[in-house]
Each structure stands twice: as structure tokens, then as C-alpha cells.
């Protein structure tokens, strides 16, 4: 009995060792184990102070990620620039790394009360294409460690209204990265397009338009007059765009990475790109294809004037994994954007 148990144990251990060695060799072959090994930051790693050549950026209307805040940085290969194009995500040269750190402030009303870094995601443009690597921050907040299989952690914070919040926060596995970063099954960045970058950012105390800054520092070539560049409105700032433009901007960054003709949700026929002009493709009076119970019993994705009868609203409101949209990376309801989209559908005739 004992001998048998021992044998099973040793046998199990041996297979585990093999798996572990495979894992180790795979990891050490190409990818640093810890975020600190890259040298992207100076000083205390958790302070996220970019080193030379690492440039912070922000998007006008970002993806909602369960109220996580994000720090974004780009590191271009030395001496290289990205060329202007105003239709799609910028075509960053091989050697570029996009860096995004997700964190929760302890108190959203007062950032001085500290924060908890959750994960730092890297998109690295290698010769064979973009690769995603996710580094999960340790509890001590001293470093972040490579994780291929994802994780779920509880987060607690006081939200912007002063309410205590607690919910699960999902860290994606490597396959899930490509669930969104996918164009014709090729991994691609989603956010940094000209229209999303066309806005101000405080650079070491001095506010400047990001495109102007990138051009001035040799990161961007071919920039025409700023006034001619497209600009995504800020979804929750009415002064930056019309109701329609802000709703479309929100749908574009939150949905269109899948819901486009070359994305993972192409099978649905629902396309939420900012450039989409066909009302049916946009969901207006379009019956669902494979929504299952995600339909919420409704007939159409969008019913003009009737947000409560629109599947789009139903699925954005649900947190049931069998119904909700997006399928991943949301445990909470984004009430503020739902209000915008309801207003948008209400105003449709």
C-alpha cells in the first residue's frame, strides 16, 4: 500500500519534473521571467517611472477593464519611428514594445492614498510578429512575474462615488490575449491609432498633444497639420464630440477588436467599427445569429428608441459569462458607458 503510494508519487513527480523543465526551458529561451529584467523603468519598479526611450501615452477613449486604471508606454527601437496613417492602428516597427500596467487606486477620489498594481502586459513586435506576455505583480509590489496561464484575484477599493467595492479581477492567459488582439488570426495591437492618440498628455509637467510630441521627438513621421488629423472623442466628455460620435468611439474600442469583418466575432455579422456605415451590420434591427440566451429574449441587437429591447444593452449589462459582452475581462457593470449607449439608442429614430 505504502510502496504503491510512493511509486505513484514518484512517478507523478517525474512527469511533473519533465513538464517543469519544459516550462523552464521555454521561458528562459526567449522571455524574461520578471518585468524588472527589461529595464523599462527607473527607480522603484512600482513607481513606473519610464527609463530613457520609454514614452508614456494615453488613449482618448480606452477599453473598459473593470474600472482598472492603466499606465501605457511605448518603446520604439533606437533611432526608428512609426509612419503616420489615419485609418488603422499604427504600424509599429519590429523591435517595438507596448507596455500596459493595470492598477487600482485604493481610493479613486484621492490617488495619493496609494494603488495596487495588478499586471503589466507587454506586446512585443518580434520579427515573426507581435507576441503577448503578461507579468503579474506580486503582493509586495516589488516585481511582476511572467504568467502564461492567467489568474483571478480579488480587488478592493473605494470608487469615485466613495463606495466600497470588491470584485474578482481576471488576468488573461496567453490564448485569451489573442482573443482580442486578433486580426485575421494574426496578433495585433488595438489601441494606439492616430485618432486615439490625438489628445493632450502631461509630459514631465508640461502638457502637449501626443502626436506633436511624438513628431518632435522623432517617433512619428509624416504627420500632417494637427487640425487635419482624425480625433476620437472622449466618451464621457460631451464637449469633445456628439452623442453619436462618443457612443461609436466607445463601441469601437470596446467591441470592434472582435466585432469587425476580420475579427473573432465576424461570424456574428455584427460590426462595431467606427468606420461601419451599414445600419444592419451595426446591429440596427439585426436579428442575432448565435446569441443563445445572450439575446435576453429580445429580437434585435439594437431597436431604435428602445434600449430596453436591444440585445446590445442587455449583454453589456449582464455579468453572466454565458450572456455578457465582452466575453472576457469584465466582472462588473460599466454603468457610465451603459448610460451613454442607452441615450444613444434612445435618440435613434
Amino acid at each position, binding site marked *: 500500500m505504502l510502496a504503491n503510494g510512493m511509486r505513484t508519487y514518484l512517478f507523478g513527480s517525474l512527469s511533473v519534473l519533465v513538464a517543469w523543465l519544459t516550462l523552464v526551458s521555454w521561458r528562459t529561451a526567449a522571455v524574461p521571467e520578471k518585468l524588472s529584467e527589461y529595464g523599462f523603468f527607473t527607480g522603484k519598479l512600482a513607481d513606473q517611472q519610464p527609463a530613457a526611450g520609454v514614452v508614456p501615452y494615453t488613449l482618448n477613449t480606452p477599453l473598459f477593464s473593470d474600472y482598472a486604471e492603466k499606465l501605457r508606454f511605448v518603446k520604439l527601437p533606437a533611432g526608428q519611428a512609426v509612419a503616420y496613417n489615419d485609418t488603422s492602428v499604427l504600424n509599429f516597427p519590429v523591435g517595438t514594445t507596448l507596455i500596459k500596467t493595470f492598477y487600482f487606486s485604493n481610493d479613486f477620489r484621492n490617488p495619493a492614498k496609494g494603488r495596487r498594481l495588478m499586471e503589466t502586459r507587454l506586446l512585443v513586435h518580434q520579427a515573426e510578429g507581435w507576441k503577448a506576455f503578461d507579468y503579474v505583480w506580486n503582493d509586495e509590489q516589488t516585481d511582476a512575474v511572467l504568467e502564461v496561464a492567467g489568474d*483571478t484575484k480579488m480587488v478592493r477599493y473605494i470608487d469615485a462615488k466613495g463606495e466600497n467595492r470588491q470584485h474578482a479581477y*481576471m488576468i488573461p492567459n496567453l490564448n485569451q490575449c489573442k482573443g482580442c488582439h486578433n486580426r485575421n488570426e494574426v496578433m495585433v495591437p488595438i489601441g494606439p491609432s492616430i485618432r486615439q492618440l490625438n489628445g493632450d498628455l502631461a509630459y514631465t509637467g508640461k502638457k502637449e498633444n501626443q502626436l506633436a510630441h511624438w513628431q518632435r521627438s522623432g517617433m512619428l513621421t509624416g504627420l500632417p497639420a494637427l487640425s487635419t488629423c482624425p480625433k476620437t472623442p472622449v466618451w464621457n466628455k460631451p464637449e469633445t464630440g456628439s452623442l453619436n460620435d462618443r457612443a461609436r468611439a466607445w463601441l469601437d474600442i470596446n467591441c470592434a477588436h472582435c466585432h469587425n469583418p476580420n475579427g473573432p466575432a465576424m*461570424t456574428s455579422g455584427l460590426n462595431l467599427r467606427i468606420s461601419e456605415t451599414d*445600419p*444592419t451590420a451595426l446591429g440596427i434591427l439585426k436579428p442575432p445569429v448565435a446569441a*443563445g440566451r445572450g439575446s435576453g429574449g429580445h429580437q434585435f441587437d439594437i431597436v431604435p428608441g428602445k434600449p430596453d429591447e436591444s440585445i446590445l444593452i442587455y449583454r453589456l449589462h449582464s455579468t453572466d459569462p454565458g450572456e455578457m459582452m465582452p*466575453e472576457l475581462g469584465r466582472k462588473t457593470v460599466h454603468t457610465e458607458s451603459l448610460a451613454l449607449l442607452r441615450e444613444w439608442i434612445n435618440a435613434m429614430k
Partner: protein
Amino acid sequence: MKPYLCILMICLIYAQAWSQADVQKRYQTKLIMAEDGSTIDLDQGTFTFTSTLSLQDKKRIVIRGKGVDKTVLSFKGQTDGAEGLRVSNGENIVIENLTVQDSKGDGIKTMNVKGITFRNVKVEWTGGPKAENGGYGLYPVQCDNVVIDQCTAIGASDAGIYVGQSRGIVVKNSKAHHNVAGIEIENSKNADVFDNEAYENTGGILVFDLPDLVQKQGGNVRVFNNYVHDNNLPNFAPAGNIVASVSDGTGLLILAANGVEVFNNRFIHNQSVNTGIISYLLTELPIKDKAYYPFSTAVSIHDNVYERKPGPASQRGRYGKLFEQILKGGQEVPNIIYDGIADPATFDKDGKPLADKRICIRNNKNQSLVNLDAGRGFKNVSLDAAAFDCQLAPLKATAVNAR
């Protein structure tokens, strides 16, 4: 001796760490790290996952359990992801000898896979038929060379075995029961569906072409040697889905499909529509897709066996009331229903149907049919089979090179 001890120690430390580690991470890591050409063997037992397991960008992978009901991947309590198992962008993938249970959304979804085989796989929702069950059991979409062999699907709130927007399909030796739709072939080209048993679903087998999809039109679908019986389960699909409009008591329903040959099947005791051939127009849903063709053409129903218990069609679907209105006292509900909505372009200038676009129904045992003439407000409802007594050229068989 020393290095050996060292390795042993590492073994013990990691064995302990891993035995405590979440099974989710262990299996997901296996799937991410799998080398092309490898086999991922799953242990016997029931394993519970909280998130979708996914395989992507891989070639020649076999995911192999120890057998149906021996290796059970349970997604009861799933908190992340809409599917149980998901395979995307692969080539020559085999999933076999395992059970997937109770996923929040679809059971096994495979998308953009060239060569996907499901063999001896069961997907089920264990709490009986419920609207809260996931939509599709086996769900290959936009795939080439699909084989579904010796599989079972139970409890899907849409279709148990669903093949959508794919090319080159064989579904055989499989069972589907207690789903809304047992087996569905949708917007797919070149499919052979044979030697299956579809029973106690709302609808046994569906062949559909729907609008607004990437792959616009299916066709060349053969349905033969199937046993399709007792599909009288009240529809439990969430409203809004096209399948929610399928009446209970449906054996086979052909909706806006072109090039369908149905033969040597047994359609037994499907009490409303043992076999139906209809246009998308009958759904009364709007059509905005200009490339969409809403009519069923070139459909051949021959050499099947029909049986139906006496009595009315189900009152839950639309057909119960319809038959009450159109059938005279003593007339039995016919086994085959054609809505009569035809594309005017499929008739010549004398009003005769073009030979290769016809609906042909002949040589079925207990054959009885009704042409509803639904396009003209059911004016000339006809039980006369003569207009359908014709034969189309047999469709070509679909061969799939399966692993």
C-alpha cells in the same frame, strides 16, 4: 548520487506545489505549451474549471481523454469565458474520448480550423432542457473538413450539434437529444449527415441558410440513413434566436437552403412537421442583406419512411392552429409541409418550375404532403403531391480526410 538526490528533491517540491495548483492552470498551461504534432492526454476523472480552456494557433494536436464519462470536463460554476473548450486558428485538430458538461455558453467551439475531428465526445447540460443552458454543444464555425463521429449532445438551448459557415462536413454515428435543435447545418457547403439518431428534441435536424453572415450560402447537403423520432419537446430556446421559432414536433426543417437531398431516413412521430421545406420569408423577419437568397430550392425528399400518431399538431407552435384552419374534418396532418413560397425566377415563362430548382418529393413510405401557398395568404392550400413527383440528380457525396 548527489545530482540524483537533488532532482528528487526538486521533484518533491514541485509535485507538492503542483498538486495544490489549480487544475485550470495546469490544463491551460498544457494547451498553451503543446508542440505542434503532440497529443494532450487528459486523465480519468471529473475536473472542474472556472474558465474556458483554449487551444490556438496549433497544428496536428490530439486532445484525448480516457473516454466519454470517464474524462469529464465540468464547467459548472464557470465565471470566465463563454465556452467550455475553444479551439481557434488551427489545423488538423482531434478532440476525442471525453465529456464536456455544463458550460455557461457553448460546449466546444472551434473557429477557423482546417481539419477538425470530434470523435466519441459528449457535450451535455446535466440539469435537463433549460433556457439557461448554453447555446451550442459541438460548435465548429468557419471550419474546413469537419468530422463529427460517435458524439452525443444533450440539453443545448440552441443546437446540440451545430456546424455553421463551414465547408466539407461529415456528421455520423451521433446522437442528439433534449436539445432545441438536435443537429443543425447552417450556411455550410458540402455536408453529409448520416447514421445519426436525433430524438426528443424540439426539432431533430435543421438545414438553414440565414442572412447577414460572412459565409452567405450553403448547399450540397445530404441527410440520409438517420433515425429522427419523437422530436416533440417544447421549445426552450431564449426568444430572439431563430431556433426559438421552430415548432415542437419538427423532424427535419429545411429553411432557405439550396441543394438538399434527404433519403433513406426514418421520420417517426414528429407530430407537427415531420419534414418541412420553408422560405425565410415565412419567419416574417426583416431581410436587409442584399446578397441573401431567402428561398429553398433544389430540395429532394425521397425513399424515406414516415410515421405519425393520429391527432393534431402541437398547439404551441404555429402549425397547430394553421392545420386547424386548413385541414377539413378527418384529414390527418400531413408528414411533409412545403410553404409554397418560391422564387419567381425559378419558373419559366409558362409558369413551369425550372427542372434543376424544383422541390421533388417521391417514393416515401406513408408520404403525405401539403403545399401551404403561404406566399398568397394560404389561398390555394393543396394536398396534391403530383406537382412534386420528380427527381433531381443525386448530390455528390462529401468526403473528408479525417485523422
